[in-house]
């Protein structure tokens, strides 16, 4: 009888424990809730934003670009994520609807970004453009830049992760301009001018070069030696007032030394670029093993990416909970003094200025 009673008591305990755990599991997997940002002082009539009105988390969020998935739109808007990236869609109307959907109701406008490189063309279903290898002259490069810029503008984009200015592309074999370093640089600059004249931010990549040189495909870290020729297209783009540059995960030595780290987490390399460049410094996508395999945990990587001096960090893991975690880790690093808030403010000021917003403090 007592055995039976203790068995039933155990059953009741287990039922209760299962109910509690079910509740905790549902809570954990439930939708991620973000409050609407009511604190932001943004005068849209003068396009002026008070930087001090943003919380530290909101400022860090402005420094992130993620994949623009419709299901996460509301949360990304409320978090004040800096930008969204779009992959291919069937029609022009689909793009207009998607980009407009993100901008409508956004407290601070998004960077609406894409990889439009010609060889890589997310608009292939309705617009054809030549790949960089098919562009023979600087004049043609300028025309292609203008034409792509107009197309991007029409669909609501404002930032293009192009052109590729690596001197070689031994992987895809279609993404780079052909010619001597001087010719590559000249074509790239003409393309950049055409794109930027159409109101699109150009992002030559992948600094400091040699990123698309095939190494051992089974090793995740890419090592390369860069020389003056690799740097020439970037130096000339800076002279040509390019608005942004993308830094790669390649570990480099030679003319530049990334201190045996991926370039975009090297304070020395990114800091060196910052010294001669007032535009935006953008990382390559951070879920690639070329970067991740350097770290035993993602949190240390997040801190290093922000500490290195990058303005914009590309994280295509569009789960808002992952992004919120990343923001929290960086916020803690700022609060502990590992990263200065002035550094974050400087990046956010550059980002807002690139979005055409005047910043006051």
């Amino acid at each position, binding site marked *: 009888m007592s055995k039976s009673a203790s068995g039933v008591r155990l059953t009741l305990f287990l039922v209760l424990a299962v109910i509690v755990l079910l509740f905790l599991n549902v809570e954990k997997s439930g939708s991620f809730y973000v409050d609407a940002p009511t604190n932001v002082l943004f005068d849209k009539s003068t396009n002026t934003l008070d930087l001090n009105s943003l919380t530290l988390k909101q400022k860090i969020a402005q420094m992130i670009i993620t994949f623009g998935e419709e299901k996460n739109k509301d949360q990304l808007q409320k978090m004040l994520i800096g930008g969204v990236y779009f992959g291919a869609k069937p029609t022009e109307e689909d793009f207009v609807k998607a980009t407009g959907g993100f901008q409508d109701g956004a407290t601070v406008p998004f960077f609406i970004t894409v990889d439009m490189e010609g060889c890589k063309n997310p608009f292939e279903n309705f617009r054809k453009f030549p790949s960089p290898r098919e562009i023979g002259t600087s004049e043609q490069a300028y025309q292609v830049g203008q034409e792509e810029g107009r197309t991007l503008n029409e669909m609501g984009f404002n930032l293009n992760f192009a052109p590729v200015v690596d001197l070689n592309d031994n*992987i895809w074999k279609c993404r780079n301009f052909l010619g001597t370093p001087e010719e590559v640089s000249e074509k790239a600059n003409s393309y950049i001018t055409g794109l930027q004249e159409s109101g699109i931010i150009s992002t030559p990549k992948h600094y400091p070069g040699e990123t698309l040189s095939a190494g051992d495909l089974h090793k995740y870290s890419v090592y390369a030696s860069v020389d003056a020729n690799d740097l020439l297209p970037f130096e000339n783009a800076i002279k040509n007032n390019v608005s942004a540059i993308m830094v790669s995960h390649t570990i480099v030595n030679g003319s530049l030394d990334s201190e045996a780290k991926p370039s975009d987490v090297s304070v020395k390399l990114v800091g060196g670029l910052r010294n001669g460049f007032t535009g935006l410094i953008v990382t390559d996508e951070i879920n690639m093993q070329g970067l991740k395999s350097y770290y035993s945990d993602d949190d240390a990587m997040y801190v290093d990416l922000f500490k290195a001096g990058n303005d914009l960090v590309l994280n295509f893991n569009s789960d808002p909970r992952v992004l919120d975690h990343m923001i929290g880790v960086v916020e803690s690093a700022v609060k502990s003094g590992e990263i200065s808030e002035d550094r974050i403010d400087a990046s956010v000021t550059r980002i807002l200025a690139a979005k055409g917003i005047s910043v006051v403090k």
Partner: protein
Amino acid sequence: MDMVKVINGILAGLLVILVINLIQPLSAITGNIIFDLDTSEPQCFFHYSGELNQIPADRCCYEIKSQLACTTLGEKGIKCYVSAASEKYYLINQKLLHYCAKEGYDVKIS
């Protein structure tokens, strides 16, 4: 009494599963098991100008996430493309797809 023992056994099993799922989602655990059981290498090729060029796995995940669609071709693998009629497309294997999911790139097969 036997019935109570059976019920308690089932509840205890459920409890363990729920505790594990709370620590790490079961989908991630089963995903990792499937990934580890498949001993093939992640493969990714880009088709352009009549050539198939091998693409590093981590760069491939970034690329296929931004394609319009991925469709299975049976034993030939999975084709990812912007335009079904285009000569530019990616050919990947199942292992690559699992690898991308594991690395945080959500790629769906249509």
